[in-house]
């Protein structure tokens, strides 16, 4: 393995672990109390009320499964696609709320917060920053598992 490939493999490991842990953590609060998250979704005034319930129940589970899949499974690119799609959706929703001047909490981690325009802007910038490594992972060959970094010890024993 060349130095460049090793650096990319470690970058991939950091991106996978970081995004996976963040999404799993952010799903936790929403799964624990779907009602609070549904209220947060309603305040964006984006979805018709008949869709808020299913959205508030499904999205945290997608976050949880994609986060776990990103860290622990071979389906890194599929999980990264879901994470990127969710981040793009969050950015669009936050931009909508900022442009409309809504003074709401972002609902990002499933716990109520002070809210306001500044919090929405910080959340939007954070999501844009997270979208970069996430989109990179979609097109990345599964180097961490394929490079032998995880399987070298098994190979030596065999």
């Amino acid at each position: 393995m060349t130095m460049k490939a090793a650096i990319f493999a470690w970058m991939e490991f950091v991106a996978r672990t970081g995004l996976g842990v963040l999404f799993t953590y952010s799903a936790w609060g929403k799964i624990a109390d779907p009602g609070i998250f549904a209220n947060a979704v309603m305040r964006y005034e984006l979805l018709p009320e008949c869709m808020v319930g299913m959205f508030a129940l499904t999205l945290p589970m997608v976050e949880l499964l994609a986060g776990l899949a990103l860290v622990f499974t071979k389906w890194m690119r599929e999980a990264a696609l879901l994470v990127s799609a969710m981040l793009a959706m969050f950015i669009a929703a936050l931009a909508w709320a900022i442009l409309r001047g809504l003074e709401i909490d972002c609902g990002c981690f499933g716990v109520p917060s002070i809210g306001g325009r500044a919090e929405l802007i910080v959340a939007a910038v954070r999501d844009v920053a997270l979208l970069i490594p996430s989109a990179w992972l979609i097109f990345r060959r599964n180097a961490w598992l394929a490079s032998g970094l995880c399987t070298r010890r098994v190979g030596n024993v065999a």
Partner: protein
Amino acid sequence: MKLPFDIRVVIGIVALAVVLGVLNNFRVYEEQRVKWFGGPVVSDEGTE
């Protein structure tokens, strides 16, 4: 055109998420639940 990912896995994750989400609604306390085709069971309007 070959996609860099398996779309069946993506659909499978989303389908599993829908099932788990609906099951999670049975697990939580009644005041934390949401209507499947609606908003929260207990609205927080007027509490702020």
